[in-house]
Each structure stands twice: as structure tokens, then as C-alpha cells.
């Protein structure tokens, strides 16, 4: 075989992954939420960092989140292939080999933890390492396929970024950092269970024991309401701490009233009503949950900005 024919033979290669395929491994959409909440955690902290340190800290926290996303795709490729929502991810779609996802995930985990430690402090790096471990081992490998409470406990992984941001600035955990963590932690179950209500077939087909699959939809609606009510004191509590103020409290009152009303509406509906309007209320609640979290953290940021000009805060 000549070099030319060998070269031409290479054209039969099914797919050569591009740079964008590897970027997709890092779940860029999830990273955007991590970047935003970590940035808020860092900027509302009472200690200020140099802009280069802030940029580095956020970049490496996001990279750590991306790394855990890649490791999750490596582990969950079999169920991602079954679910419509995840079938187009790089590994189940065959664009990137599972082994490559593992290598990217492990490599970026190491880089992100070490670099966050060098850019800020060891406590923040340790917390990032624990978050990656929690998401990959505790959630992906253990809880996700074994208990309907997977979302509840696994939600902690997504709740750590603002705490890591705070620790990156201050070097320690405080009640404010804990409440920002708790806000996302308590918000995660209603957010994902609302999604599961109108994506039931996906989880069912993959055999993931979502609450909708194991306990039925009526129980899921009750759980959404319970967690939404439990979320209220956390949100209001955060608004009366050092990171809160009148603006944050007003935003928290309005958002929580809307969220609880939405949850009550879901609780009072049954499957016949939901099927009739193609899960309009469930989809609306899911969209509102995204706005809820974004506006809460935006309010913390706005309060910090107001404080810097002598307004806002308690």
C-alpha cells in the first residue's frame, strides 16, 4: 500500500472529534450557572481579591465543574444513549470515545484543583476537589441509579460553587456561604422534579429511579410543594444576613411567593389536567425555577454593589 492510498484509507475514519466536541464534554450550559453563582459568592464576600485572582478563581471553579461533567458523561454513557435529552452528547453519539472523556475529566480535575489552590487558597481547592468527588462518585456512580432521592443529595454538588467562591475570597466558611449553598440545595429537587414530570418517559426508559418512576406523579407533586415551602426560610434567611438587605428581602418575598403559588398549582393538578394542556403549568414552573435562582443571586450581587456606594445592606 502506497503512502497515498494509506492516506486515502484514512478518509474512511468515521469521525474525527473537533475541539468543540471536547468542549461539549464539559457541559457548557451547566458551567454558565456555576460561573454565575461562584462569581456572586466571591464578589459578595467581605474580602476583595485582585481582578486577575477573581478571573482565575472563577475559571478554575468552572473548569472543575466541566471536569466533573466529562467524568459524568464517561460513567453515564449507557443511560445517556437511551434518553432523548442526552442522546446527542459527545460520548453516546459516538463523537468522543468514553476513554477520552475519562482522560479529559481526570486531567482537568487535577489542573483545576491545583490551580485554584495556587490562585486563591488550599481550603477553596479542597472544597472544589470534594465537589468533583461528590458529583462523580456519590451522585453519578452511587445515588443516581440506586435511590429516588438521587436529586436531593446529588443536588449538593451543584450547590457548592457559591460556597467555593466565598471560601476563595475569605479562606473560611460562614453562615452566608452556608445559606447560599442551602438555597441551591433546596431549590434543586423542585427544579428537577418539575422537569421529570414532563420528561418521564426518558428517565423511565433509562431505568433511572426518579421519584416520578418509583413513587408516581402525585407523590412527586407533593414533594415539589414540600421542598418549595422548605426553601422559603432559607431564601428569607439569606436576605437578612450580611449579604442581604432591603432589596434582597423584597426580591426574596416576591420570588418565594411566586414559587410557592406555582408549587401549589402543580400539587392541585393531576395527570389528566396536565396531559390536557401538554404540561403547561409544569413547564412554566420549571422555567420560573431558573428565573428564581438567577434573580436571587442577582439580588445578592446588586445589594453588594449598592453597599459599595453607601446604599443597601442592613
Amino acid at each position, binding site marked *: 500500500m*502506497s*503512502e*497515498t492510498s494509506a*492516506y486515502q484509507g*484514512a*478518509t474512511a*475514519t468515521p469521525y*474525527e*472529534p*473537533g*475541539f*468543540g466536541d*471536547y468542549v461539549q464534554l464539559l457541559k457548557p450550559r451547566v458551567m454558565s450557572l456555576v460561573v454565575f453563582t461562584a462569581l456572586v459568592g466571591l464578589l459578595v464576600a467581605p474580602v476583595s481579591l*485582585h481582578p*486577575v*485572582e477573581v*478571573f*482565575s478563581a472563577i*475559571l478554575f471553579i468552572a473548569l472543575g465543574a466541566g471536569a466533573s461533567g466529562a467524568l459524568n458523561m464517561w460513567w453515564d454513557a449507557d443511560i445517556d444513549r437511551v434518553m432523548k435529552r442526552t442522546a446527542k452528547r459527545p460520548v453516546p453519539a459516538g463523537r468522543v470515545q468514553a476513554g477520552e472523556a475519562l482522560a479529559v475529566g481526570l486531567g482537568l480535575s487535577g489542573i483545576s484543583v491545583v490551580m485554584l489552590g*495556587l*490562585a486563591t487558597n488550599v481550603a477553596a481547592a479542597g472544597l472544589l476537589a470534594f465537589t468533583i468527588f461528590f458529583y462523580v462518585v456519590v451522585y453519578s456512580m452511587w445515588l443516581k441509579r440506586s435511590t429516588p432521592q438521587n436529586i436531593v443529595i446529588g443536588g449538593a454538588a451543584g450547590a457548592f460553587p457559591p460556597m467555593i467562591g466565598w471560601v476563595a475570597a475569605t479562606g473560611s466558611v460562614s453562615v452566608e456561604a452556608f445559606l447560599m449553598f442551602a438555597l441551591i440545595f433546596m431549590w434543586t429537587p423542585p427544579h428537577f422534579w418539575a422537569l421529570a414530570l414532563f420528561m418521564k418517559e426518558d428517565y423511565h426508559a433509562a431505568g433511572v429511579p426518579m421519584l416520578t418512576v418509583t413513587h408516581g406523579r402525585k407523590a412527586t407533586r407533593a414533594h415539589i410543594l414540600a421542598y418549595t415551602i422548605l426553601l422559603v426560610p432559607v431564601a428569607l434567611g439569606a436576605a437578612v444576613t450580611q449579604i442581604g438587605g432591603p432589596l434582597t428581602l423584597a426580591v426574596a418575598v416576591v420570588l418565594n411567593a411566586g414559587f410557592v403559588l406555582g408549587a401549589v398549582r402543580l400539587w392541585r393538578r393531576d395527570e389528566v389536567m396536565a396531559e390536557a394542556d401538554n404540561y403547561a403549568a409544569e413547564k412554566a414552573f420549571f422555567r420560573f425555577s431558573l428565573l428564581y435562582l438567577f434573580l436571587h443571586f442577582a439580588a445578592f450581587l446588586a445589594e453588594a454593589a449598592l453597599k459599595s456606594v453607601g446604599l443597601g445592606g442592613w
Partner: protein
Amino acid sequence: MSFRPEHELHKRRFSRNLGVGLTLAAFVALVFALTVVKVKRGDPMQGYDHVVQPSSVPKEEVQP
């Protein structure tokens, strides 16, 4: 024998390699910027260089 570097395979690999190259260059630039910031913000440092430095010698208390 001909070699066609503009082949689709090369194009695709070029974009990937360019992406990795730019990412590494950005990483180096970031580490450099971070180093500059850390050094500038650190406490003034003075290493021993075998030269008498009066500023380093503790001042003796002057008797009245």
C-alpha cells in the same frame, strides 16, 4: 505520490490543534499574570546576597 494537506481530515485536526494551542497559550498568559499579581501583592522580600545591608540590622536602643 502526492500529499494533500488541505484534506478534510487535516482541516478538522487543524481546528482541534489550534483550539488546544490557543487554550495552552491563554493558560500560560494567565499563570504569568497571576504570578505578577502574587509577587506584587506579597510582602517585600529581601534575600541574603553576601552584602552588608544596614537596613536589615536591628537598631540598637540609644541610651539617653
